[in-house]
């Protein structure tokens, strides 16, 4: 997959020929994908295209049956999930998966457990600046917050480990347009200010493509198209498949 906009240096995350199966059913049919340092890369596609599977495959759950996944020069294909996380890849999983009966503060503590919480106070300050709502609700149980707040918490929890790569799986899922905008603004800001590398899986193609430097389109387990966000946004096929019908 040649990509004219890709910087020359080694990509941070590389997937080559990744195939993932659920039992005998093939979910990813050989995916090639690159994420470079400092980029926002988005993966768009319809329901069941395999976007979330790809996200979870990067984390080794389910494991790729064929192909290789490389992060920062290391082959992580066969690594256990928690060790992959220890390479400083953080994830805000699909459906958020916050710890509902623990408080916001405790959720963030668990997020910071990678390095034993040495930077905890500092990072807490930081995520509270990014998401002032969380500061208000620090001692409230995660499960009692609104969907948008929970999403913020999921991202904040991921940020607590000071990741080199942030994986976001459908952060806009089930959120009001205004909240979606807020979340996407935060992602942009993280990237522009802190140089955070973000890999974003989205159904909300319009917002995702506007935000992303580069983007991939996935259809039934295969990457069918790639390019800059602007290119794909203007592409008639993408327009017809993902943008028509007021999807934003």
């Amino acid at each position, binding site marked *: 997959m040649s990509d004219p906009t890709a910087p020359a240096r080694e990509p941070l995350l590389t997937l080559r020929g990744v195939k993932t199966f659920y039992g005998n059913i093939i979910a990813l049919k050989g995916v090639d994908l690159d994420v470079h340092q400092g980029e926002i890369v988005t993966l768009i596609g319809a329901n069941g295209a395999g976007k979330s599977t790809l996200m979870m495959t990067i*984390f080794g*759950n389910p494991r790729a049956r064929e192909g290789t996944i490389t992060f920062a020069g290391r082959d992580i294909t066969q690594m*256990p*999930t*928690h*060790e992959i*996380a*220890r390479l400083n890849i*953080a*994830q805000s*999983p699909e459906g958020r*998966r*916050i*710890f*509902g*009966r*623990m*408080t916001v503060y*405790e959720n963030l*503590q*668990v*997020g910071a*457990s*990678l390095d*034993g*919480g040495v930077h905890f106070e500092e990072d807490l300050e930081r995520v509270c600046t990014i998401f002032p709502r969380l500061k*208000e609700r*620090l*001692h*409230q*149980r995660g*499960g*009692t917050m609104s969907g948008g707040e929970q999403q913020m918490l999921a991202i904040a*929890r*991921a940020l607590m*480990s000071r990741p080199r790569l942030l994986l976001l799986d459908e952060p806009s899922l089930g959120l009001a347009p205004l909240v979606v905008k807020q979340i996407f603004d935060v992602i942009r800001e993280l990237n522009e200010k802190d140089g955070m590398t973000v890999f974003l899986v989205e159904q909300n193609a319009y917002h995702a493509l506007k935000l992303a430097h580069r983007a991939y389109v996935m259809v039934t387990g295969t990457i069918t198209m790639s390019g800059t966000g602007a290119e794909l946004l203007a592409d008639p096929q993408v327009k017809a498949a993902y943008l028509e019908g007021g999807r934003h």
Partner: protein
Amino acid sequence: MSGDAMTTRTGAGPAGSDLAAALKDGVRGALVMLGLCIPIILLRTDQSQANELILRPRVGLVLIFCALIFILRFTLSYYGVKWRTSRRLKAQGEALPTVTDARPTWKARLSAMALPAFLGLAVTYPLLTVLVNGGLDPSRYWIDLGILILTYVMLGWGLNIVVGLAGLLDLGYVAFYAVGAYSYALLATKFGLSFWICLPLAGILAAFWGVLLGFPVLRLRGDYLAIVTLAFGEIIRLVLINWVDVTGGAAGIYSIPRASFFGIPFTAGEDGFAARFGLEFSGMHRIVFFYYLILVLALITNFVTMRLKRLPVGRAWEALREDEIACRSLGINTVSTKLTAFAIGAMFGGFAGSFFAVRQGFISPESFNFLESAIILAIVVLGGMGSQIGVAIAAVVLVGMPELLRNLGFMRGFFGAGFDPNEFRLLLFGLGMVAMMVWRPRGLISHRDPSVVLKERKAISGSLVKEGHG
């Protein structure tokens, strides 16, 4: 309640006025207690030698109760648990913070009171029974009951680590109790090791078995885990029955050496406990010692659990209970987290087991059947998973109540001479469970309330938060 004491304490007054007010409060409480004691406790009716009704005054007891009330009331008052003050202040137009309100809610205040009250009761319990029953020997039943309850409190707290914190449903917890009991019994009878050496050994062995159980069930959760742990409990019991050479089979192990008071035996002889401390020999000394031993063991369990809860490993346990996948993707090693939960929970089960063996002096596989596991689990669930004080209350209710029901002999008056209250204990137990399911589905004390709430009424109860995916 007169108001003058209250009004002197406006907001953050000087410490002196606080002290004075607290003293007043304590004295008032003690006076009320005195008033109540006079008709209820002061006079005991007895039969004299001549079969006449005589009244025996019990001034000492009344004074003790009054002193207890004074101390309790004074402490509560002085350390900021003021029942009506805050309401009164509000009425006077004091600016009270209402938005992020950091003042403890009434529930927090209740638990702040409950803890010292429980602890005080637990520590003074033998003394109280002696005072009420008028002597050491008549209180034997009550102190034994206290020991039984505390054993279950400890088991409940141990299992709470596995079930309440880590969310791993363990139906075979009694296996570790058995491992601990047999460890002590075998080490003591075959090798003559003392209780104080065997206690840590029993804990280590039980922890080892906990890890051994943990390995095969690492990938299981919820129902599947429950079935396997249930089987594990049964396997241990069947091994104990069938491995006759070592365990003595169904007959069990007899004459297990009793614990000494740190080297001083509880015997009537010269160097016995009673002689050394200049007391008159009584078999009850040992019982009272056992009571305090299990109390200390239980408190250690509680203390360790509370500490662990605040450490990263405790957070990891709770996170594991909530969502295993999220845990893993945050870099938590779920394998070691689960194994530590199993091991530490099992270790406390082992401690309790060796205490059980040393207290009974006789153990057999009968004591470690599935019903025991079920009761311990019921204590944890009824207490409210993850709540320490809830587990203690549930143990008192579930173990103490059925025992007290044995004393329902007077019910024969209603149900005829054939009525045996023992037969109905389990029925009442079941009724209690059903009542709990209906009214407090998340346990007596549902897991930690949020400490910051917008307004008291709006505090969202635990029942509205979704359960972790089992």
